[in-house]
């Protein structure tokens, strides 16, 4: 299945990109994807990263085909 992954701020800088489409095994979890990408791009301060699935931060679920998964560094608005 395919998920659309977005990176922001410091994470986009580490990844060298702001968006990519990944082909994942059916049944992959948010946590799996997070750990995999953190390792792949050597993203720092992993504990401070929040993941939004389809714009929702509350997610401990399996990913579905077509999901939009965003890697969000600490917020700095205002």
């Amino acid at each position, binding site marked *: 299945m395919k998920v659309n992954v977005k990176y922001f*701020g410091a994470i986009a800088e580490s990844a060298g990109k702001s968006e990519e489409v990944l082909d994942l095994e059916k049944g992959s979890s948010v946590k799996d994807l997070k750990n995999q990408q953190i390792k792949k791009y050597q993203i720092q301060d992993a504990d401070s990263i929040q993941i*939004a699935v389809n*714009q929702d931060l509350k997610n401990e679920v399996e990913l579905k085909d077509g999901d939009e998964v*965003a890697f969000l560094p600490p*917020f*700095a*608005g*205002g």
Partner: protein
Amino acid sequence: MDKKKPKKVFVDGAIPPEKIATSIANHQSKTNIGAHSIFLGQIRADEIDGKTVSAIEYSAYEEMAESIFHEIREAAFSKFDITCAHIYHSLGEVKTGELCLFVFTSSAHRKIAIEACNYFVEEIKANVPIFGKEIFEDETHQWKVNK
């Protein structure tokens, strides 16, 4: 009132002071308003490890941010008896001394306007996916984190 209209929060670059005057003037026909509370965020020339911030470049997960802004508005209108509320936040580069956030709440009574304004500011800082790159005078940068 203007509670239900979807509102565009993000503006390109700094928020000009004239925008605040215009917003205020637009409320002078609403004679049920007794108090306005305004919060403005301005970029500080912080010194960090001997380097001075010259600008912050804001980016955001825009679609999600706009929907969170909308949720914050809905929650504020249900919590507080406010007449209107407006929020503007910069995207892109905002130089030191310039404004990056403008929150404007109005009510018949001062305490409600003030509490609602504070609510917006705290919610925006905590829950909206906006990211800030602090650019130093030597063109290096670091990523800002809200405290």
